[in-house]
């Protein structure tokens, strides 16, 4: 039984985890940097420990300080939240070595899935379609040329150890290949400490669709349906919805079955996501996010399952007493991320209320949005019986939002949701450029 849990994170996700703990009667310890001393998570937690200066490598990535705080305050477990140390196999291992429970997958699973090439190989072994491309690290330029010829241009070079949209290079012609390969390797080395690069076919207008899964590591895996995260700006997600407006029942079933099979073969434990690209009626495995995701509330609203509470129960060694038929997916959910476009003091802040609206945030009037961290101010999530009604509820909610003192993307989000393309459900990952940049 977990009686006391430390949250190795900050902001809205720290608040989210504290709320789950309160529901479960678990005591919480918040850790914070000097810049975050006066934030909501620090006030809400039962205890709080300052772990370092503002810069993330001095605080939220400071593994010794975090683990020492957990041990000294007699915690049983650490929840890593999202980002920071949540997909760091080394951290998960150190937490376990300190005699604490890591709320998440086993460290070996995180290590395996962190390598894109290994993840593709695992997907292939589970008979899941992957984007055409190399299944091994590129050996040299000749290997790269041959692979590109086989799969056809445009191709994308990706850092094997990469993620987060970094260390990627699109190559449209063979003449660009040599130089791009050199740059991609250099980027891979400097971002991830590993120069290995692999190659995939580059899809021009894909949809980004992911399957949310829950597994107890004891043989039970269920899915909570998909999330369509195709509305992005510079690879950062802006709107996420479930169900996806472009999947037909057959493709949805196939993607969910594939994902469940992959997690079973991996012996996966905890919550996790399989990300796919969808184009021209086909889907391709992209990667596994071996952690909780920012957009998890979308799946919580359609499935009525609290993912953070489920993660904690699984980490305690409890079996998932669920079969797939016990997870009925109901209605439609949409999440809108409100991001700051400038840092500073929020002089006035008011969030929406009313039927079927959930707001996850950590800020209030008078809060100072720190320039050191993520720019997200709030996630507004709505539920309705269908997509059209859901968009109306979201617009009603966004009209109630008041944020003064800093610049935000609120108006852009309204523009996107009311755009003809988004309403029709037919658009690619370039919707933001088409709607928001043309407006300017």
């Amino acid at each position, binding site marked *: 039984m977990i009686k006391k849990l430390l949250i190795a994170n900050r902001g809205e996700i720290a608040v989210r985890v504290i709320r789950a703990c309160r529901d479960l009667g678990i005591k919480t310890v918040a850790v914070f940097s*000097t810049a975050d001393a006066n934030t909501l998570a620090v006030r809400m937690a*039962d205890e709080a420990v*300052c*772990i370092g200066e503002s810069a993330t490598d001095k605080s939220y990535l400071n593994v010794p*300080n*975090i683990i020492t705080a957990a041990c*000294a305050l007699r915690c049983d477990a650490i929840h890593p939240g999202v980002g920071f140390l949540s997909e760091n196999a080394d951290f998960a291992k150190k937490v376990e070595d300190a005699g604490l429970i890591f709320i998440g997958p086993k460290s070996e699973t995180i290590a395996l899935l962190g390598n894109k090439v290994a993840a593709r190989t695992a997907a292939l072994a589970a008979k899941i379609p992957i984007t055409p491309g190399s299944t091994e690290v590129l050996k040299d330029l000749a290997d790269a040329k041959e692979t590109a010829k086989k799969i056809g241009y445009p191709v994308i070079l990706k850092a094997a150890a990469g993620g987060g949209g970094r260390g990627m290079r699109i190559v449209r012609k063979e003449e660009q290949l040599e130089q791009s390969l050199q740059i991609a390797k250099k980027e891979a080395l400097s971002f991830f400490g590993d120069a290995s690069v692999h190659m995939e076919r580059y899809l021009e207008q894909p949809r980004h669709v992911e399957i949310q899964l829950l597994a107890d590591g004891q043989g039970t895996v269920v899915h909570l349906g998909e999330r369509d995260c195709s509305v992005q700006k510079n690879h950062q997600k802006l709107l996420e919805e479930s169900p996806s407006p472009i999947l037909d029942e057959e493709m949805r079933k196939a993607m969910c079955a594939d994902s469940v099979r992959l997690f079973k073969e991996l012996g996966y434990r905890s919550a996790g996501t399989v990300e796919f690209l969808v184009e021209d009626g086909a889907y391709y495995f992209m990667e596994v996010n071996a952690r909780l995701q920012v957009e998890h509330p979308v799946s919580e609203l359609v499935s009525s399952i609290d993912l953070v509470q489920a993660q904690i129960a699984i980490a305690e060694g409890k079996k998932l007493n669920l079969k797939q038929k016990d997870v009925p997916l109901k209605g439609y959910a949409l999440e809108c991320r409100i991001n700051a476009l400038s840092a500073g003091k929020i002089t006035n802040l008011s969030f929406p209320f009313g039927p079927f609206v959930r707001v996850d945030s950590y800020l209030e009037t008078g809060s100072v949005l720190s320039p050191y961290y993520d720019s997200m101010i709030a996630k507004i999530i709505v539920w309705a019986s269908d997509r059209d009604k859901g968009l109306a509820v979201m617009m009603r909610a966004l009209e109630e939002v008041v944020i003064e003192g800093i610049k935000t993307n609120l108006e852009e989000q309204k523009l996107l949701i009311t755009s003809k393309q988004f309403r029709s459900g037919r658009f690619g990952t370039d919707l933001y450029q088409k709607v928001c940049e043309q407006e300017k």
Partner: protein
Amino acid sequence: MDTIENMDLASVLSLFEQSSLSEMELSCSRYSLKFKRPTSEDQVVVSTPVKTVAKKAEAAEPVAQSASEDLQTINSPIVGTFYLTPAPDAPPYVKVGSQVKQGDVVCTIEAMKLMNQLETEYDCEIVEILAKPEALVEFGQPLFKVKKL
């Protein structure tokens, strides 16, 4: 004699006021109380039964500059357990009034089974020991009040 349960708040308070205590904590089945005599910044704290520790806000604050110019604090560079002695039965590294040279060890902070010895960055005299031995200290927490020499 009254049991604590039967005393009202006013009489507990007057007991505290008449005593020479600087701090007092009481808990019983009906309530728990914590009194602290006001220092220059503090107010009397009466805590409710639910709230346990009030320490978290104060510890994180940036180190206040002392009124006197040569008084400084030595702050913890890491999170860990604070020890004044190198071993349980050994004499302490420093006492109030000790004069230390730059590079002298003033305490040990244990983190992840490692004993980190904290050295002073300048010659100074220990004026006050601020942290509680064998307790958790957090990043930036003042450990010693010192006078620069």
